[in-house]
């Protein structure tokens, strides 16, 4: 287990503990995010066991992908009320698509990029819609003190770059150095995402406390 991975796990755990400590004070979407951090922490920990045993970390991601989709879209569902029906149906469609992909296209030992790419597009769309929503309903609270702004920004950044990087994945696989770069970028992006998620959870608990 590398130091980098340990730091990554520590970030996930810290975010989850911040959420757990303030769980009662959190609004529902941030409670969802707290559980999501725990699921991610468990999933990432399991990948290490798979690497150790099978030299492949892909199997847990086939389960993690639909879970991640469910949790992130549930978070957005709380704010994008007009898209409730679309998001609810997309859970069923995405779950079916993941099963079909696993059965016929990308087996358990392959990275489920076919599932990741449409999910990334969905997250980016949700983030853009939420930005529009935030702009239409400006409150009195400063933007930079809003957890929603921080989480939404990090979602937009992570999943735009994720989509971009995984689109180039096959090209970059051809050169060893480049995949190393891709792995670095993914790590940095994921770390910023989970740090920001932790900050968003903290800001929400503070906001609720002040209310």
């Amino acid at each position: 287990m590398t130091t980098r991975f340990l730091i990554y796990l520590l970030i996930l755990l810290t975010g989850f503990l911040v959420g757990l400590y303030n769980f009662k004070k959190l609004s529902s979407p941030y409670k969802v995010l707290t559980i999501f951090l725990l699921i991610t922490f468990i999933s990432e920990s399991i990948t290490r066991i798979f690497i150790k045993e099978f030299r492949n970390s892909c199997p847990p991601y086939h389960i993690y992908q639909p879970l991640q989709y469910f949790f992130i879209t549930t978070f957005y569902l709380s704010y994008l009320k007009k898209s409730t029906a679309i998001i609810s149906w997309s859970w069923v469609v995405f779950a079916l698509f993941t099963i079909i992909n696993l059965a016929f296209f990308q087996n358990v030992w392959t990275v489920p990029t076919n599932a990741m790419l449409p999910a990334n597009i969905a997250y980016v769309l949700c983030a853009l819609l939420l930005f529009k929503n935030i702009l239409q309903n400006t409150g009195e609270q400063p933007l930079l003190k809003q957890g929603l702004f921080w989480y939404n920004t990090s979602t937009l950044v992570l999943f735009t770059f994720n989509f971009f990087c995984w689109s180039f994945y096959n090209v970059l696989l051809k050169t060893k150095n480049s995949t190393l770069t891709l792995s670095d970028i993914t790590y940095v992006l994921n770390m910023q995402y989970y740090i920001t998620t932790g900050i968003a959870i903290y800001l929400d608990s503070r906001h609720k406390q002040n209310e």
Partner: protein
Amino acid sequence: MNNNVSEIYVFIFTGILLFGILAGFIIFFVVAYYKKQQQNSREKQLLQTKFNEDLLNSTIEIQEKAFDDISRELHDNVGQQLSAATIYLNLLMQEGGQQQNTKLQTCREIISNSLQDIRHISQTLLGDKISQVGFIASLRLELSKINKLGICRATLQTIDEPLQLDPRKEIILFRIVQEAVSNATKHASGSDIHIIVKKQGEQLKITITDTGKGFDTQETEKSGIGLINMESRAKTIGATYELTSQIGKGTQINIVL
């Protein structure tokens, strides 16, 4: 190999471009958000000011209506009864002897004075009367009433030319001065009250000075409803209101319209 390198360059270039677009989007969003927030805040403030103005206008209207009612009641009811009493006294005086007449005469004078006072009060309370008689004439009447009471010595220094004022503004200005004079008689007993009304170009300047005991303006600001009323009334007609007072050195109020 060359193909791979060019693809990596495309990857890096697209990555930088994407980063630039995202950064630009976020900056644009933050700026747009703050602009919208400021606009909302301004709109809210405007609505609040408009609401306060409407509320104040309604209060003033209700107050004026109450004054009018009291004025009419004094004039038509109490005034009529006192007039009737004077007529009866006159009849009694015609019937009575010399000694009795002296007492009746005194009685008639008291009632007559009371009747005059009531008429004065009635006039200063009636908004229509103030605009009909005029601001300066109403002020003179008010000050003569104060002087008659003998609590303070009130003087008025004014321009001769008639003031071309909107009747509503005239009433409100008069109410401000009335409140200031009333405050001076209540809190600065025995002092001199001096009112100056003058024109400075297009502006009308009214200064009310008293030589009373003065007060701490910061202390009174918290509780002085009369002072707040004067300031609010001045605001509704677009006048500036300034109050200065020092303990032991009297009070001065400047109103510029």
